[in-house]
């Protein structure tokens, strides 16, 4: 579906909604007589949500390619939040949403689903105990259309990554591990992942001058070129990842 088609679909839905607020002659009804939006069925809500996801992602991609936006927050409909791992309902809810995205990204590896989910949950439980992990989340805001109530309802997590405090090196510099970078599979190719990386890495570097950041990446993934060529990382060795697949260890060392 093209951006134009998406916009038309979206405008059509908006028009339908607006029709509830006018009388048969096209005059705006008094506020008391306006009909509240009909509750949408889960399936319809999901479709509507996806259309708006695609629209916003397409717009972001377009603007990012033209270098008209830098941060994920520049468009006004996404917010970059941090979440420290604590044992409370809000954190558990967000982790549940992250797990959904994470498992959808690995849906082509059904044999690994259970192992992956366990690894994800164990890492988070460990993080809650040690309080050394911070998640960065990109949130799609609920009121993206400038309305008090949009069909998006509550804000949605659409991308996330993690920084883990690994202690300090012999020079006293903080060492972070950057990983678990995931973007909702609905939004692949939108540059939101790249923008999330840029913004979160930049924030971590600003929080701690001279921090060393380590990560692992898939050598064949396009993002590896971003890490090496733009984000200041250098590859240090080849090791095997969680699945026995070769990966490149990378490090951003300011000195």
């Amino acid at each position, binding site marked *: 579906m093209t951006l134009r088609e998406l916009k038309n679909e979206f405008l059509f839905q908006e028009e339908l909604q607006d029709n509830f607020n006018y009388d048969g002659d096209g005059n705006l009804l008094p506020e008391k007589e306006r009909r509240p939006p009909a509750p949408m069925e889960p399936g319809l809500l999901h479709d509507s949500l996806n259309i708006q996801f695609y629209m916003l992602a397409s717009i972001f991609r377009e603007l990012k390619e033209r270098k008209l936006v830098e941060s994920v927050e520049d468009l006004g409909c996404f917010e970059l939040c941090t979440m420290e791992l604590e044992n409370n309902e809000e954190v558990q809810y967000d982790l549940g949403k992250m797990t959904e995205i994470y498992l959808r990204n690995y849906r082509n590896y059904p044999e690994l689903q259970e192992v992956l989910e366990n690894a994800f949950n164990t890492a988070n439980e460990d993080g809650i105990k040690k309080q050394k992990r911070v998640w960065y989340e990109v949130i799609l805001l609920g009121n993206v259309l400038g309305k008090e109530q949009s069909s998006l309802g509550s804000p949605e997590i659409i991308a996330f990554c993690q920084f883990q405090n690994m202690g300090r090196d012999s020079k006293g510099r903080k060492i972070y*591990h950057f990983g678990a*970078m995931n973007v909702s599979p609905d939004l692949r190719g939108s540059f939101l992942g790249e923008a999330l990386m840029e913004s979160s890495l930049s924030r971590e570097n600003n929080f701690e001058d001279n921090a060393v950041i380590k990560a692992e990446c*898939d050598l*064949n993934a396009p*993002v*590896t070129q971003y890490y090496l060529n733009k984000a200041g990382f250098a590859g240090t060795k080849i090791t095997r990842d969680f699945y026995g697949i070769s990966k*490149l260890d990378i*490090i951003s060392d300011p000195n």
Partner: protein
Amino acid sequence: MNESSVSKKLTPEEAAGLLGNDQQVQKDIGGHKVILQSARKPSEISFRPFGNGFVLTRLIQEEDRVIAVFESGLQQSEHKSPANVPNQRS
């Protein structure tokens, strides 16, 4: 690392020129030893330079090949991977 890295300043044309028709060459650029290596795709890069104090600082994508640039003399911290959740695959 960025400021001392010489490979970041290399243009794709310069890298291709230094490499010529060889699969791998070692050069001295601004006091840094640099190894340029050509491969058809990233998974075919040979990482032998890693054991000799070199780190991979650049991947230059060309039409039918990729040029990997390794540099020596860049200080590295000892790496210890955590028990971490893997990144998504692309």
